[in-house]
C-alpha cells in the first residue's frame, strides 16, 4: 500500500518559538537533506575529471608545501610534522569550506526560497553534511601518511566521533549566523574570507603552540577554534585524551555557536524571501 501522507496545517500566526518550529520542520524534510548532500557529491563527480580525487589531493598538496617550508623549523618540537599539519589542515578545511559553502548556497541558490516553502536551515545543514563526507574521505590520505611515516595509530582514535561532532556543531552555528548576515549584505562573504585567512594564522595549525611566549599561551583560548582543534588533533597526533578544561571549552564553543547561530537565523528567516 502507499504511505499515508502526513496531514499538514499551516498557521502563520502560530507562535511556537520559531527556533523549535524550524527543528521540527527540518526533521520533516530529512530526506531532502540527504538528497541535497548526495546531489552535491554527485554533481562534483560529474563535472570535474578529478572529482573526489581533488578532495583527497588538496590537503595533501597544502601539507607538502607547509612541510617543505616549516618542517625543519619545528622539527625539534614536532615529530612527524606532516601528520601534525595535515590533521590541522583537515580540521581547518572542514570549517572554512562548510561555512563558505553554506553562505554561498543560501545567497546563490536561495532563490528557491522565493518560489517554494522549504525549511530555511536546510542549506546550512546540507553544507555540514557535505563537509562531513569530505572530512571522512580526507581521513584516508591522513592514515596513509601516518603508515608511511610510521606514526602510531593510537587507540585514542575513538575520540574522533566526539571531536567531529563538536566541530560540526560549531561549524553549523557559524554557518547559520554568517549566512543570515550574507543574505542582507553582499560584502559579508568577502569580509568573512579575509577574516578566516587571518584566523588561520592565529590558530596553531602549522606551528606548535609553544612558539608563543609561555605567559601568552592562554590568549589562544580567545579563539574558539583553538580548543576544538586540540580536541580533534590530540587523539590523532599525541594519542592523548584532551584535558577537562580543553573539552569543556570546546563543548562550550560548539554549543554557544549553535545556539546563537540557530537563534539569529530562525529569527530572520521569514525575511529571507523578501530579500534574496
Amino acid at each position, binding site marked *: 500500500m502507499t504511505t499515508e501522507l502526513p496531514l499538514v496545517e499551516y498557521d502563520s500566526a502560530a507562535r511556537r518559538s520559531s527556533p523549535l518550529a524550524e527543528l521540527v520542520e527540518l526533521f520533516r524534510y530529512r530526506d531532502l537533506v540527504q*538528497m541535497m548532500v548526495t546531489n552535491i557529491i554527485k*554533481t562534483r563527480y560529474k563535472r570535474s575529471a578529478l572529482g573526489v580525487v581533488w578532495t583527497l589531493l588538496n590537503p595533501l598538496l597544502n601539507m607538502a608545501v607547509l612541510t617543505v617550508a616549516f618542517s625543519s623549523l619545528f622539527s625539534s618540537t614536532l615529530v612527524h610534522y606532516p601528520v601534525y599539519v595535515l590533521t590541522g589542515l583537515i580540521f581547518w578545511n572542514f570549517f572554512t569550506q562548510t561555512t563558505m559553502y553554506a553562505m554561498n548556497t543560501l545567497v546563490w541558490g536561495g532563490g528557491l526560497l522565493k518560489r517554494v516553502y522549504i525549511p530555511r536551515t536546510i542549506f546550512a545543514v546540507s553544507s555540514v553534511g557535505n563537509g562531513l563526507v569530505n572530512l571522512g574521505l580526507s581521513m584516508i590520505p591522513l592514515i596513509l601518511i601516518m603508515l608511511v611515516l610510521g606514526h602510531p595509530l593510537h587507540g585514542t582514535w575513538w575520540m574522533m566521533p566526539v571531536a567531529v561532532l563538536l566541530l560540526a556543531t560549531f561549524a553549523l552555528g557559524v554557518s547559520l549566523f554568517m549566512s543570515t548576515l550574507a543574505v542582507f549584505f553582499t*560584502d559579508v562573504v568577502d569580509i568573512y574570507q579575509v577574516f578566516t585567512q587571518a584566523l588561520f594564522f592565529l590558530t596553531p595549525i602549522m606551528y606548535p603552540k609553544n612558539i608563543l611566549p609561555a605567559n601568552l599561551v592562554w590568549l589562544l583560548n580567545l579563539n574558539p577554534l583553538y580548543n576544538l582543534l586540540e580536541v580533534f588533533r590530540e587523539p590523532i597526533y599525541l594519542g592523548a585524551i584532551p584535558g577537562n578544561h580543553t573539552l569543556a571549552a570546546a563543548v562550550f564553543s560548539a554549543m554557544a555557536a549553535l545556539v546563537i547561530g540557530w537563534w539569529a537565523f530562525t529569527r530572520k528567516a521569514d525575511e529571507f*524571501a523578501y530579500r534574496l
Partner: protein
Amino acid sequence: MLTASEAAPALTASASAQPVIQLEDVSVRYRVPRQRIPSFKEYMIRWLRREVEYNEFWALKGINLEVRQGEAFGVIGPNGAGKSTLLKVVARVLRPISGRVRVRGRVAPLLELGAGFDFELTGRENVYLNGAILGYSRQAISERFERIVDFAGVREFVDAPLRTYSSGMVVRLGFSVATDVRPEVLIVDEVLQVGDAEFGRKSAARIEAFRTAGTTILMVSHNLTAVTKMCARAAWIEHGAVREIGPAGDVVRQYQAGAG
C-alpha cells in the same frame, strides 16, 4: 459594495463546509532601502547616523477572505495588484507582516513547476529531489515514481540528464510530480498551459478530477471567462486590497465595468 462578511454564499460549496484557506487582515510590505546599501560596512555607518531610510510598498493591505472546502476561488485584478503576493502568502513562501493566514491540508503550488530542478541530474533524480522539496518522503516518491514518469511521458529519457530534455518535457515532469497526489489545496497562477495540446487536456482533466473529488482551488487569472466558468466565487484585488468579493460572475462583471 460587498465585504467579506456579507459576501454571497458559494455556488457549489455548502456554507457548512470547513474553511480551508483563511486570511484575516493580512498585510505584506516590501521594504526597499531608499539608497541601495549592498555593503555591511556602509550599512553600519548609515545605521549609526540613523540614516537608513526605506521606501515602503504595501503589496497587500488588510486582506480578508475565506475559501471553503471544495470551492474554486478566483482572484482577478490588474497587474501589480498583489495577486501573486496573495498566492505566495497562501503557499507559505512569504510570511505576512501582520494578520493571519491559515491553510488546512496539503498545498500543491502550481506557481513554479519543477522548483529546484538540477539540470545536471537525471530525470529520475530530479523527480526525487523535486518531490522532497514539495515535502514528500523518499518512500512516498518511490511508490509513485512509475505513475509520475508515465503521466509526464518521459519514460525513455528517465535516466538522461535533465539538460537533454525539451522545455515541454521539463514542465510536464514538474506538473506530474506536483499533482500526482490529490492535494487538499491547489494554487494555480494563470490558466495552466502545460506542454503541448494533448498534455494540456490531460492536465486540465486532472485538475477537474481533483475539483470533483473535493480539492479547494485558488487561482489567479487574467482570463475572465475562465474564472467565470471555473470558479464559484472570486475576489477583485486592486492596490493590495479587496475591491469586490462574491459570486464570480458578479465580480467579473463589476471588474469589467470598473476597469472599462
